[in-house]
């Protein structure tokens, strides 16, 4: 391979405002400038997004891996790089490198029930996985697909356009929950780990994938283990500060594992054998 640090040029094709409550989350549709340079990623992988003069930061892909002309990324305005990204306009040039990291074990998961538990922006890195499994060519490879999607309030859900469609399908079960009651809210109220017991989960044959705030991941995975799902069948994806994304710069390691190359996707079995430093 060539120099692993050199990004290639791309353009912003579309920008979507994600939530109504919080204007700080936007989804960017990105098209490589050169048609030969595509991001052929698998669900769970990430890329490095460069804004020359400001810096570079890692983000998970958030679109279907079957979209070949573009990909999407959902970004919350949080730091130096994301602030500048949020000020970009359609047509602006950006620089990207990847795909990086490992991916969800989509083949291993075939033939099983799938439970997705996502909180807030934690749905973003799981969206490629959901769209991958719902792809007509793949849907029959998985049994029941259930989703427990949580947000602080009804206005905090990202991908409402997807959620409506997933809810309409008769081959998926979608449950939405918010932290506190709201007038007119038809979904559930409460933290996701408290609602898992109400779901129809075949613990003998289910892969669970969860992502959200660290505290949510901790409680949800704890509850899933308590319910009897083996740790080897519970997956999450981690984030870390990274510079290189290729296992050299020394920032994202948890013990001897590097989140950028050994992750970002880890099973609870792997995580329980690693130091708790994330």
């Amino acid at each position, binding site marked *: 391979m060539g120099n692993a*640090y*050199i990004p290639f040029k791309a353009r912003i094709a579309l920008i979507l405002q994600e939530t109504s409550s919080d204007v700080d989350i936007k989804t960017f549709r990105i098209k490589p400038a050169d048609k030969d340079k595509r991001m052929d990623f698998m669900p769970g992988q990430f890329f490095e997004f460069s804004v020359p003069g400001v810096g570079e930061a890692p983000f998970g892909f958030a679109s279907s891996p079957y979209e070949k002309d573009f990909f999407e990324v959902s970004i919350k305005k949080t730091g130096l790089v994301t602030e500048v990204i949020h000020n970009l306009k359609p047509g602006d*040039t950006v*620089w990207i490198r990847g795909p990086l990291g490992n991916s969800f074990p989509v083949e291993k998961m075939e033939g099983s029930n799938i439970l997705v538990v996502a909180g807030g922006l934690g749905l973003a890195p799981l969206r490629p996985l959901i769209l991958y499994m719902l792809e007509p060519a793949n849907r029959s490879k998985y049994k029941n697909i259930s989703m427990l999607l949580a947000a602080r309030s009804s206005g905090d859900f990202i991908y409402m356009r997807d959620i409506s469609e997933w809810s309409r399908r008769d081959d998926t079960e979608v449950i939405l929950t918010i932290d506190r009651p709201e007038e007119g809210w038809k979904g559930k109220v409460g933290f996701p780990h408290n609602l898992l017991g109400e779901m129809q989960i075949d613990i003998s044959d289910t892969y669970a994938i969860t992502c959200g705030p660290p505290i949510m991941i901790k409680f949800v995975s704890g509850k899933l283990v308590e319910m009897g799902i083996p740790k080897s069948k519970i997956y999450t994806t981690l984030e870390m500060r990274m510079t290189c994304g290729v296992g*050299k710069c020394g920032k994202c390691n948890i013990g001897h594992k590097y989140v950028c190359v050994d992750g970002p996707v880890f099973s609870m079995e792997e995580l329980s054998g690693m130091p708790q430093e994330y």
Partner: protein
Amino acid sequence: MKCAVVPREKFKSAVGLLIDGYVAAIPVKENGVLEYKKMDGKAGEKDLAGLAAYAVDCDELPYKSPKEFLFPQVEELMVFDNDSCTAVEKDTRDKIAVVGVKPCDLNALKVLLTVFFQGKYKDDNVTGRRENIMLIGTGCAKKKPGCFCDERGINKNFSSECDIFIEKPVDENDSFRFYSFTVGGDDVLDRLVTGGFGSYSDYEPACGQREGNGCEKEELVIEAEETELFDTADWEGISERCLGCGICTYICPTCHCFDFRDALAGNKTIRYRCWDSCMYPKFTLHASGHNPRASKKERFRQRVLHKYVYVKKNFGYVACTGCGRCIRSCPAGMNIRNVVREISGIRV
């Protein structure tokens, strides 16, 4: 491997021939500090051969390690303009001969090259520089205060992790021995022998046996699993004195953590790679404010376990060669050898 015997009186001119055509990086003492200085032989004013010969003979370890010749403290990685991003070509005009590198540092460069060369991705910027560098190694006669290479399984008298290793004479009547371990080293030795500075010998490296190989001590390693030491050792107490200044990481011959920094230059942006340090709180600080290594306890633990456990697990080597620089330089008297002994349950 070849071995050429170089008589004492021809030693200086033989070293001069080794560095001929190279920019020589030679440890030179200035204001009491021994540091590698890059010197262009074409300047012709300095007695480069003399300085290089002195450096080989000198029994001191330079303050900083020679890692910067492979992995510079600051390097231009790429240049962005409006329309392109171009990798900065490494300056290959300069072929550098690094003179008088001690076995601890030669072994450390091996670790550094392995980290950048192996794994899923290869860093050509670092590994590519090796081709333009001639490493001229030499042994240490005495252990310096703080040195513990003997506990790290490194023979202070000899190392083959270089192009040419120069073994000093044991007594006044003896000759120098120049060993070559690479194709580049073989070529130089051929020129040396053809030029009449020495003659080939079938002499095998003494491996320092003449003075004892120096590594008869039990090897200092961490056998325990990482998760075990992570929580059981008293990291809070161990790191209490640490000031978090990071000098240990800058002068360490194996530390290799880095950061990217962008700087505007006219219409262009240059992305630099700069050394970074796991001793600093911002090293792992997320944009969200979360920091997995929030206090010096976590940061010091990272430094020790990265060197002794993580690199070994990933690349097969302990990333500490016992050069003792961090011990000698620490303003607070931290001592990685004693820490490793303490957490391994060895009496300090």
